[in-house]
């Protein structure tokens, strides 16, 4: 998001009182740890006028079933005021198995859309102007392949890859830590990440090649402190990998983006975003000597916490999501996904999805929080929380450094154990009623009515398998084989694999075929 305010527009409260863009201490020097919005260390936000210039992007994560069905849901979201797309892929696609693989049995189209070849990708974005929307894809171990598919879809529609804007999640480290959709071991996976960094820096100026994600770490049960620390420690690892591959910090750092969760502990959450922003700016400046101000800015997407949703009394989730969304906005997020109330039970119904979007629109258009930058800044409580979260997170990062960095810390299982311990402690605090979740351990209802839930059509494996069979029979088999052989050779060297992946995709090679080829060189990762 950029700061595009031009003609100064004036803001007033409902009573008619004028509202300034920023409020600062009335006298004395500005505390250096605070700074001004849009200035180092960016505690108060990365843009001088924040949401006055432009509100955050409403970006709702969605996708299920076939590409055709998901395409309908995207159009529905865009028509209702969504301003960016966020694609959910099914698990076989995320791990790189074709829909007809035995491990894909039962999983096809379940938690997201099934993509086997670029033809599915064409269907997914049918009728959506790729040069006008920004598309975020939750894809990690196979991110480079899905990016290649997106590029080829645009190319075959006559759109240059230079015009494409969006994000691939591409954060493989947190897969080993928390989410589990890895395919290859850490080191070759990091090489693929690095290849996308290099490729995007040269060819895709508007594309974010990574979204370094604390969200899943938090979902797995970490504390807010661990969420900051482990996410930034992952970032440090990616940056060091890219630097050692010969990239220059200011060439790729401006396009690093982040992804955090927003939970219900309102003040800690708002402070968390401020602390993460400041700590990142310091790391980039002091540890990596980045000079470009854009390299120092932590830009992030937020999703309200999936684990905070309750299956009991699901309407209550609307209120939770509102509080969480507000924390994200007051923390200065660049884009936001609000969960639908029924997502503890299934993918959202259309009605629930609409309420989720409306929640963001009410905050943006009715609450008045967009009128001034960082309205919580200067609160004794929030500033204190911000300081303490930053200090504690920095201490954890130092501990990871002592272990030899994030890959070592993950390989030894330490990071996973820290998260498991926090998750267990939190769960135990609920069991003992030390913490309350309304409707779960207090204010329960007996005999709750079964809610309406969304059911993904079953037996998609055969639909996708049939499509795949057709494509395999129609494509140029020689071209597929040549492109895959070429990919395999290159994978054994240090050549950037992106151009070769694009060629395999153009040839209509399937994601499974591409990953099997890479696996021959990279190996298969076993759980740590």
């Amino acid at each position, binding site marked *: 998001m950029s700061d595009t305010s031009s003609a100064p527009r004036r803001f007033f409260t409902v009573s008619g009182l004028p509202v300034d863009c920023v409020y600062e201490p009335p006298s004395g020097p500005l505390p250096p740890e605070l700074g001004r919005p849009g200035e180092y260390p960016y505690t108060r936000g990365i843009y001088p006028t924040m949401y006055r210039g432009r509100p955050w992007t409403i970006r709702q994560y969605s996708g299920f079933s076939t590409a055709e069905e998901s395409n309908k849901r995207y159009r529905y979201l865009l028509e209702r005021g969504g301003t960016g797309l966020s694609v959910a892929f099914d*698990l*076989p696609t*995320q*791990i790189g*198995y074709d829909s007809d693989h035995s*491990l*894909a*049995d*039962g*999983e096809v189209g*379940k*938690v997201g859309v099934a993509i086997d070849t670029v033809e599915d990708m064409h269907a997914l974005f049918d009728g959506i102007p790729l040069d006008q929307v920004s598309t975020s894809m939750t894809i990690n171990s196979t991110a480079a392949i899905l990016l290649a598919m997106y590029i080829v879809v645009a190319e075959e529609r006559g759109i240059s890859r230079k015009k494409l804007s969006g994000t691939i999640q591409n954060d493989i480290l947190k*897969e080993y830590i*928390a*989410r*589990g*959709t*890895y395919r290859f071991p850490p080191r070759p996976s990091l090489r693929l990440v690095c290849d996308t960094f290099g490729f995007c820096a040269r060819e895709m100026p508007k594309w974010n090649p990574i979204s370094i994600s604390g969200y899943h770490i938090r*979902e*797995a*049960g970490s504390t807010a402190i661990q969420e900051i620390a482990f996410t930034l420690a992952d970032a440090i690892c990616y940056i060091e990998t890219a630097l050692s591959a010969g990239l220059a910090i200011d060439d790729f750092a401006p396009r690093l983006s982040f992804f955090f969760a927003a939970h219900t502990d309102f003040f800690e959450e708002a402070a968390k975003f401020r602390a993460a922003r400041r700590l990142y700016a310091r790391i980039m400046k002091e540890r990596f000597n980045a000079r470009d101000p854009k390299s120092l800015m932590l830009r992030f997407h937020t999703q309200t916490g999936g*684990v905070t949703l*309750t*299956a*009991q009394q699901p309407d209550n989730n609307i209120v939770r999501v509102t509080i969480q969304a507000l924390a994200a906005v007051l923390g200065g997020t660049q884009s936001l996904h609000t969960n639908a109330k029924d997502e*503890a*039970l*299934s993918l959202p119904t259309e009605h629930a999805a609409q309420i989720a979007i409306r929640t963001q629109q009410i905050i943006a258009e009715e609450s008045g929080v967009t009128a001034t930058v960082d309205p919580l800044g200067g609160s004794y409580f929030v500033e204190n929380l911000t300081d303490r979260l930053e200090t504690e997170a920095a201490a954890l990062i130092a501990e990871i450094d002592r272990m030899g960095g994030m890959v070592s810390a993950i390989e030894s299982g330490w990071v996973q154990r820290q998260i*498991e311990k926090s*998750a*267990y402690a939190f*769960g*135990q605090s609920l*069991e003992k009623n030390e913490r309350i979740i309304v409707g*779960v*351990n207090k204010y329960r209802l007996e005999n709750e009515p*079964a809610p309406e*839930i969304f*059911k*993904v059509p*079953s037996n998609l494996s055969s639909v996708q398998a049939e499509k795949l069979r057709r494509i395999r029979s129609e494509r140029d088999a020689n071209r597929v084989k040549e492109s895959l052989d070429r990919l395999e050779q290159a994978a054994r060297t240090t050549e950037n694999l992106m151009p070769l992946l694009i060629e395999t995709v153009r040839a209509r090679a399937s994601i499974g075929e591409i990953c099997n080829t890479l696996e021959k060189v990279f190996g298969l990762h076993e*759980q740590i």
Partner: protein
Amino acid sequence: MSSDTPASPRRPDGGRFRILIAKPGLDGHDRGAKYVANVLRDAGFEVIYTGIRRTPEQIVRAALQEDVDAIGISLLSGAHMTLVARLTGLLAEHGADHLPLFVGGVIPESDIPELKALGVCEVYGPGTSARTLVESLTVHLEKHVHERPA
């Protein structure tokens, strides 16, 4: 020697109950599975934790080698029908269909009767408390241990 919590259930031969916890399918969100493993450990069970992305074949072999008293699986991705059917089929093939099978995770209410018809002992949905889980499991285990073939 350790001090037992009063609730700590034992097999008739004095040994600890052994329970296999696994996540079949491709979903990697293991918070729930790990939480349950910790809860059961603290209730005095021996938990054989096999991790994420296990195939039904791997789960059955592990259950046999570990001679567990029950199997608990966590399923979130919506693939439960397919995976449970394969698992119960394999258990029967290996003469282990007497083993109680428990399912936890996101399972629509309407699928529960079909899962039970496949041989699932109990389905624990989101928000099941640790106490409820341990009590329910203990009842099933104590019942089962007397019916178990030698």
